[in-house]
């Protein structure tokens, strides 16, 4: 096996140290990596003259390293997807963003219906968002159900197309792009005064996760060190974000099956946890908290004590509210067996986060690619083996418990306040830096590539939802269409994080 250029999570390398492979060699090495146990964390293009340089980031869970492969493409290259299903959406994205044809890809459908980032600017979009061919089943009594983009609840927009026979869904296709705000395009040439705020709002429920990933790429490019205390505060905020969202999801799952006690309590407790994030920085979603070089606010003695006490209360309340789920037969009857995904499928399509761990995959950035405080303090990985709605719910609860324990531990031994770390803004030119963070939905991957001037030639964001939406589509196969809301909630993926 050839040794590729590797770097740790949060590392950076000079661009010229990654050999520019010929396209077939690039393909061979990515496939070889995936066969040998690596996973595609990112596959994206970066403009280089009138060509596009492709980068593939492979995540090696066994060694905790990431390898970078690259090739320069003019307008076509041999597609990876036929031999590697987890590349399929990345390659559709490449085709849409850069007008590149991955030859042999089974169906290059639009991902976001966005204007290409190469070629004539201001060219009108080929079609209205969502107007595309969908996979169709034919036959007697086969029918199609279309849902969205506007849904019945207070949720983001997306379109779902079901191929059904009676109540049974044989195929679900998910068509997104309605939330596309052009964030990646706006990031090129940065960073500037808006960059951090794009990170805060690209998936607003994951503000801490994405801003942490962003700051770590900047810190890698500027060779800055983050003070120990700031690392701990970042870790605490990340786990608070996880707890709040997991509690909210469990409440919403209870709501979807009409189990009102847990739904009502969790809705309230989630708010209590968001208020703990607000205690750190004044904002319930953690805006202003994570900044390059450290954190925008420090924990005072008073807020530390409040955080400890209020977290304990919230977790006790959550324990009572959520344990009702596991004790109520009618709840279990709806959760168990709904929307199952096998471990093998999860592996093939590259699921991440809760959805992967609910299929029994031990996959967690905090353990596999530890950084910051997670190098010092270990949060045990939680898995379940059934891959169904129950598993995705139960893993969430176990994670809530472990994250709370982690926070309480950290509050006992907070490093003393260090002097503010000097932060130099000059970024290395022609470098590639990357950072992985285990957000509450799963692996967040940010990759920055800088140009000669030390500014972003491109900035790639992979929200965990990008990996996982396809998982939801597969989970619905041979399920009752009436179980869709429940299955959808059990994944609870981000629309804007996918659409960027």
């Amino acid at each position, binding site marked *: 096996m050839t040794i590729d250029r590797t770097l740790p999570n949060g590392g950076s390398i000079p661009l010229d140290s990654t050999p520019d492979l010929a396209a077939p060699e690039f393909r061979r090495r990515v496939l070889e990596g995936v066969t040998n146990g690596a996973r595609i964390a990112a596959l994206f293009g970066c403009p280089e003259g009138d060509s596009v340089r492709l980068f593939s980031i492979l995540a090696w869970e066994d060694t905790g390293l990431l390898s970078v492969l690259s090739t320069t493409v003019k307008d076509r290259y041999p597609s990876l997807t036929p031999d590697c299903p987890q590349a399929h959406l990345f390659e559709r994205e490449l085709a849409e963003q850069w007008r590149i044809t991955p030859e042999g890809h089974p169906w290059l459908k639009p991902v976001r219906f966005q204007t290409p980032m190469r070629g004539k600017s201001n060219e009108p979009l080929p079609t209205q968002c969502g107007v595309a061919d969908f996979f169709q089943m034919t036959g007697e009594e086969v029918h199609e159900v279309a849902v969205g983009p506007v849904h019945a609840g*207070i949720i*983001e927009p997306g379109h779902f197309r079901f191929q059904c026979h009676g109540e049974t869904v044989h195929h679900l296709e998910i068509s997104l792009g309605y939330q596309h705000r052009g964030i990646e395009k706006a990031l090129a040439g940065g960073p500037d005064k808006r960059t951090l705020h794009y990170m805060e709002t690209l998936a607003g429920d994951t503000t801490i996760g994405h801003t942490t990933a962003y700051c770590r790429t900047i810190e890698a490019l500027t060779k800055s060190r983050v003070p120990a205390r700031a690392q701990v505060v970042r870790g605490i905020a990340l786990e608070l974000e996880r707890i709040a969202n997991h509690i*909210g999801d469990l409440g919403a799952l209870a709501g979807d099956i009409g189990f009102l006690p847990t739904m009502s309590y969790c809705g*309230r407790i989630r708010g209590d946890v968001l208020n703990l994030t607000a205690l750190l920085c004044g*904002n319930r979603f953690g805006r202003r908290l994570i900044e390059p070089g450290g954190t925008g606010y420090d924990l005072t003695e008073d807020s530390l004590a409040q955080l400890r006490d209020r977290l304990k209360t919230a977790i006790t309340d959550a324990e009572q509210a959520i344990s009702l789920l596991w004790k109520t037969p009618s709840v279990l009857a709806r959760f168990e067996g709904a929307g199952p995904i096998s471990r093998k499928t999860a592996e093939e399509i590259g699921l991440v986060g809760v959805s992967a761990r609910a299929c029994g995959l031990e996959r967690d950035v905090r353990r596999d690619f530890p950084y910051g405080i997670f190098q010092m303090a270990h949060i045990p990985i939680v898995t379940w083996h059934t891959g169904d709605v129950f598993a995705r719910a139960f893993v969430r609860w176990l994670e809530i418990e472990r994250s709370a324990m982690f926070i309480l531990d950290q509050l006992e031994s907070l490093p003393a306040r260090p002097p503010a770390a000097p932060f130099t803004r000059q970024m290395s030119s022609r470098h590639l830096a990357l950072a992985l963070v285990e957000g509450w939905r799963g692996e967040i991957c940010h990759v920055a590539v800088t140009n000669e001037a030390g500014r972003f030639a491109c900035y790639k964001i992979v929200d965990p939802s990008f990996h996982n939406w396809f998982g939801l589509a597969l989970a619905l196969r041979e399920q009752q269409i009436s179980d869709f809301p429940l299955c959808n909630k059990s994944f609870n993926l981000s629309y804007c994080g996918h659409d960027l």
Partner: protein
Amino acid sequence: MIEILKVRLKQGCRTMSYPAGPAPEMPPHFTGRPVIHPESCGEDCRECIEVCPSDAISVTGSEVRIDTGRCIFCAKCRQVCPEQIIDFSPDFRLAAARREDLVLGSGDDPVPSASSAVAKKLFGRSLKLRQVSAGGCNACEADTNVLNTLAWDLGRFGIQFVASPRHADGLLVTGPVTNHMELALKKTYEALPDPKIVIAVGACAASGGIFRTHPESSKVLADIIPVDLFIPGCPPHPATILDGLLRLVGRIDEKE
């Protein structure tokens, strides 16, 4: 069943008494309604303008004004102002019925009006809302949704979110309105029976926020459909949203 009842007893009643009782307490570093001190700022100093990510600040002569419809309350301007004339109060009451009232200067009336006589008459006792997220990041959505939880219990004011635009009296919109959502937004609006109102929640819906200049969200909500209430913030605190809704329909009397 016994278990469920036991938990019910332990959880108790958690609905806040606001607005009859005290307002919920804001967290320590909360950035609410800007306070601009009347001292004149340094000549030719444009530091706040330069640092502002949403182009919310204008300085004419020595008068500083902040457009809270654009502001994301990042407090960067406070950090850089050498004269310390910009500050943010813990006051969460930010909503206004007229877009121009969102621009705050030092001499302005402290809390702009959010009330509407028509809304009070028609919807004062019952207001059904349909929510449309049009490029929202799920923070405004989440903190709107939280009003439905029993801590806030929006239902006690007769305000409810409904599943169909046909059942709704108003639209509550979040996000900068991406081009891709423009059509769906218009169709939803048209599906609402008249008379109807529109509420813009968050900096994005009020002005486009930091996405204002993006070709991917080329139009602002108010240019597509008429807006009756603007609720600033990124995202607005649930108390800000609730206060706006209640003042709009006259459940909180602004004169008091």
